[in-house]
């Protein structure tokens, strides 16, 4: 639908457009971080493109492709309301690298860039107010990175010491086990629904910390948690 925008970009920037891709109506151009701001400004200012609707800036993390390709994809989604065309601009940055802010082009980029910094830790050069927007200032790290530990929480209020005996008998049929899902056990193919605390409580697994547990040998399939039902 917006291939003429890609053609227009290639006409203007020539070899600075590293690659273009069109898949099921989604058109995408990849540029180097140095050309990020110029291309975005061209998309906004050029009368043929006229990208007046800023949708989002977000990031995708691919740590496994390093070091050949930088790990972060910074993605810009923009749309032209008048010309009914939509395009995606992409650039790739690595750990610690910066990309230019687009707040001078679209004011709406302010908060989405703050969110991108908050979640992935990619800095935007020249941003007027690059602070965390969703998380609290005490948070260490960037949680949507693939290398952020999946079960790591950073409580602001120290947790009270409550044992598993206080847990409610939520069953697998409820869809919401009462307590955290044992992701490590789930990835190893056993104990699909029961949280670690309940599994220990019901004797399905010994009270080990998940860090030093050997997950290579699957155990026998545990019984689902029994739930008391009120007789009708």
């Amino acid at each position, binding site marked *: 639908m917006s291939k003429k925008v890609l053609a227009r970009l290639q006409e203007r920037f020539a070899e600075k457009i590293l690659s273009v891709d069109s898949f099921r109506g989604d058109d995408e151009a990849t540029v180097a971080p140095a050309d990020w701001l110029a291309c975005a400004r061209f998309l906004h200012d050029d009368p043929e493109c006229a990208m007046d609707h800023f949708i989002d800036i977000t990031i995708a993390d691919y740590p496994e492709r390093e070091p050949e390709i930088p790990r972060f994809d910074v993605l810009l989604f923009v749309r032209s309301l008048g010309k009914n065309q939509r395009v995606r601009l992409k650039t790739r940055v690595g750990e610690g690298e910066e990309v230019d802010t687009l707040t001078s082009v679209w004011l709406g980029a302010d908060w989405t860039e703050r969110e991108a910094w908050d979640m992935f830790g990619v800095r935007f050069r020249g941003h007027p107010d690059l602070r965390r927007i969703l*998380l609290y200032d005490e948070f260490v790290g960037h949680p949507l990175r693939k290398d952020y530990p999946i079960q790591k*929480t950073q*409580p602001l*209020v120290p*947790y*009270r010491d409550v044992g598993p005996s206080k847990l409610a008998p939520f069953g697998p049929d*409820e869809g919401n086990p009462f307590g*955290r899902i044992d*992701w490590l056990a789930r990835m190893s193919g056993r104990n699909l629904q029961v949280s670690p605390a309940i599994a220990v409580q019901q004797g399905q697994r010994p009270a080990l910390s998940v860090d030093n547990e050997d997950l290579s040998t699957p155990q026998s399939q545990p019984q689902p948690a029994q739930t*008391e039902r009120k007789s009708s």
Partner: protein
Amino acid sequence: MGDMTTVMGDSGFATTNFDALLGWARKYSLFQYPFVTACCGMEHMATAGSRYDIERFGAGAPRFSPRQSDLLWVVGTITQKQAPALRRIYEQMTDPKYVIAFGTCASCGGFYDNYTTVPGIDKIIPVDVFIPGCPPRPEAVLDGLILLMEKIQNGDREPAVLPLQQLPPLVALRNKQGSAKESA
């Protein structure tokens, strides 16, 4: 006040013990502070509405200052960022204070199993009654309230969980005249 009361013949007097009297008075005058953060709030409103009418149990009047309330309804997901606010509100309430964890998220974090959600508000503040459900039906909420009232009457501060509810089967409204389909 049930078993705690002894009627003294025809004298017109009854005796009880002081704790039972106090519990009886407290359980029928719960002033609630709704800490509503998420979608469970709709069921909380339904419970307060005329069809279910939480006022029947003396727990209808919401106080929008924690200093005037003695029952904290935590309704919805509590994030780590919000936890200090919840903690402070709990500390501002005057004794005796009771807490109900309304719904799965408040009880255990629910399916928000990640860096941002408190896995159950009992990690932050003491809880008297957990009401499971995503969200719980108003009937379950009322059952939870009655459970809390029993605990107040008995002076029991041990956390309790509302048992899972078995809802009655659905019944077709029109099936005798054949105007509705047979399938339920």
